[in-house]
């Protein structure tokens, strides 16, 4: 166990009326508990509005849960900001338009003091090389790259802090199919090379089948099914999972 979610719930208040009183409560997540094994890939699947992204943000401490807590195994994850990273869905919004690629990569290295100022350029070149982007990208701005290339740069940025676990929040769903497949293969290669743990979030069951070892099915903020990927794909117990499988296979 490298990270564990214990009874996590998250409620958002809705403001309405003239004086913006709290008139309602959206239950984004309801009593979600699960643990992630080291070096494995946990797939989280659910349609839009099932609370996947909220869960991702809570796990990486960008958002505090209303109830419950996120626990880390101290020996494996000492500083979660360094050891736990996230890659977002929209490549066009997750890179600072005003920053050159080299500065985007230098930032995590400098924050966690992982390289001396002299070594920054080499370290950044290594990271880009690991994700298949050539070196002259360092001096350029995000606007000059395609969606697929930008997502590779985001992955490079996540790798910069030598993390143990990376949360991938629908990393490929806004790209073309052929590019999606190439990125999935890249992620699998990186997982072997850097001994990573993945938490892969997607609404596409075929992608989860391609990537994940174990699966967790979310519906309306609740876990409806959890377990080994092959077992669940072979004979799902919950009707919702069945309907997802049927629509994926057609």
């Amino acid at each position: 166990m490298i990270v564990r979610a214990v009874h996590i719930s998250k409620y958002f208040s809705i403001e309405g009326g003239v004086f913006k009183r709290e008139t309602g409560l959206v239950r984004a997540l309801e009593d979600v508990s699960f643990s992630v094994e080291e070096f494995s890939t946990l797939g989280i699947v659910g349609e839009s509005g099932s609370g996947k992204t909220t869960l991702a943000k809570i796990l990486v401490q960008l958002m505090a849960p209303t109830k419950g807590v996120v626990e880390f195994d101290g020996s494996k994850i000492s500083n979660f900001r360094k050891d736990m990273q996230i890659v977002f869905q929209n490549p066009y919004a997750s890179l600072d338009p005003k920053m050159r690629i080299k500065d985007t990569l230098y930032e995590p290295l400098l924050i966690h003091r992982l390289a001396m100022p002299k070594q920054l350029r080499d370290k950044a070149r290594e990271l880009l090389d690991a994700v298949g982007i050539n070196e002259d990208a360092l001096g350029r701005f995000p606007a000059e790259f395609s969606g697929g290339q930008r997502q590779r740069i985001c992955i490079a940025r996540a790798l910069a802090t030598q993390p143990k676990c990376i949360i991938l929040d629908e990393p490929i769903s806004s790209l073309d199919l052929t590019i999606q497949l190439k990125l999935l293969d890249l992620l699998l290669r990186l997982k072997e090379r850097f001994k990573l743990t993945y938490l892969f979030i997607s609404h596409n069951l075929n992608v989860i089948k391609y990537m994940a070892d174990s699966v967790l099915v979310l519906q309306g903020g609740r876990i409806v099914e959890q377990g080994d990927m092959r077992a669940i794909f072979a004979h799902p117990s919950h009707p919702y999972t069945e309907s997802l499988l049927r629509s994926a296979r057609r």
Partner: protein
Amino acid sequence: MNKLLLVGIAIIGFLSAAAILAPFISPYEPSLIDSASLLMPPSYAHPLGTDGLGRDLLSRIIYGARISLGIGIIAVGISLCIGVIAGSVAGYFGGLADSIIMRSADIMLCFPTFFLILATVAVLEPSIINIMVIIGLTSWMGIARLIRSEILSLREREFIQAAKAIGASHYGIICRHLLPNALGPVFVNATLGIAGAILLESALSFLGLGVQPPVPSWGNILIESKATLGVAWWITLFPGLAIFVTILGFNFIAEGLRKHWGYNA
């Protein structure tokens, strides 16, 4: 660098050089009264002619540039500082701070700025410092609103979340990510602000409430010309032309920056 920006910078560069080097390049003492040459039209001795007291118009305009540019830049400096701080606090931290700052901005915006300035000038003595401070204090709201809306839209963008995720501090996020993205439109707005402040100063002096004579400012030269309207056209034309060219220069810079950075602020 598009040509609009270059032309603008050239104009303002020339004028600021003239203002800084005023003592060396202006042919006469600005307040030297030469009773022999009253109301002389432009001539070799006085390239822009003289005013009712025989003072050389060219030197007065050059010295006037010091006042107008100085007031313009410092006043906008004040409103820029207040505006940037208020805007980023309201935008980044939101909640109570946001509503207090924004409500006070709305209130200040309701006052017709010229009324507010005139009222405060009437109450305090119209010295140069007072004018700078008053113009600065009554024009920070635009910049604060601009920064706030920029930060609000940026704050939700994923690259800010990503910066937090890699462990950047609040300070790091504001300086490295929020401000560079938000300051673009602010500079465009600030250059227009300088033009506005110069207009305001000259209008104030035109009404006799700005810089008091004998210190020359473009505005108070113009008011004196009202008396000799029919007779000495040059006293009206040239100071106004100086204001016009300066504001045109700043507008060119603002428009050039907007094109250069691709905003439509």
